[in-house]
């Protein structure tokens, strides 16, 4: 067996070993690959959820107005909405999608992440409610030192 093929075989075995976890977890990169290539927030939301109709309420975003270091901008997301998923987008980087959380009944929507922002822009968080509607919030961030070069 060629080395390359052998290695990819090893990756398959590793993936199979983790199957019990991934059965109940959803990988949005595999389900919606186009959403991660979209260059605008509108396009990414449409590719992810099949709709662009947003209700601008119920999503709290806490982030600094001015980020000294664009390499690690802290962003907190909180909401009481009964949700299926939470998606984070921004306008500062070449592609828009940052991450998607799948939500189940055990989880509380209270997340903190650190993201890279190449330049000043707007962060948009979309929450897919169990009622099928899309709720959103957004926050402008000024970036003093861009974060994609580090």
């Amino acid at each position, binding site marked *: 067996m060629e080395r390359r093929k052998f290695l990819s075989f090893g990756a398959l075995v590793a993936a199979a070993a983790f199957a019990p976890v991934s059965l109940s977890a959803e990988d949005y990169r595999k389900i919606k690959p186009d959403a991660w290539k979209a260059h605008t927030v509108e396009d990414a939301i449409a590719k992810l959820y099949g709709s662009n109709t947003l209700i601008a309420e119920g999503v709290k975003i806490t982030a600094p107005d001015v980020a000294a270091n664009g390499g690690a901008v802290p962003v907190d997301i909180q909401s009481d909405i009964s949700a299926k998923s939470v998606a984070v987008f921004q306008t500062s980087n070449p592609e828009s*999608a940052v991450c998607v959380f799948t939500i*189940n009944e055990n989880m509380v929507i209270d997340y903190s992440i650190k993201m890279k922002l190449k330049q000043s822009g707007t962060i948009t968080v979309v929450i897919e409610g169990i009622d099928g509607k899309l709720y959103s919030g957004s926050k402008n961030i000024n970036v003093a030192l861009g974060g994609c070069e580090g």
Partner: protein
Amino acid sequence: MEIKAKLKDGIVSVKAMAKHPMLTYDVAAKQGLEANFITHMTATVNNKVVLDMSTSQFLSKNPIVKFTFKGAAVGDKIVMTWVDLKGDTETSESIIK
């Protein structure tokens, strides 16, 4: 991966840091390297999923994620796994305090 999980008022708060360069396509191209970043992260407690996160190249280097969930007790084991673009994976565990 460093994981700290703490129960308070019925809600477990977790702070986790994955050690990963999170090399974007742009930076990788400039440095003549291959892009590589964490693409998916999960956490489970008692075989229940408590974090399920699909991620892109735009999380920070050595990304920190804080998340919260219900339905676990002090002493329960939390298991976290990430997988990156190249298919490498790392699993770590911690005990809820």
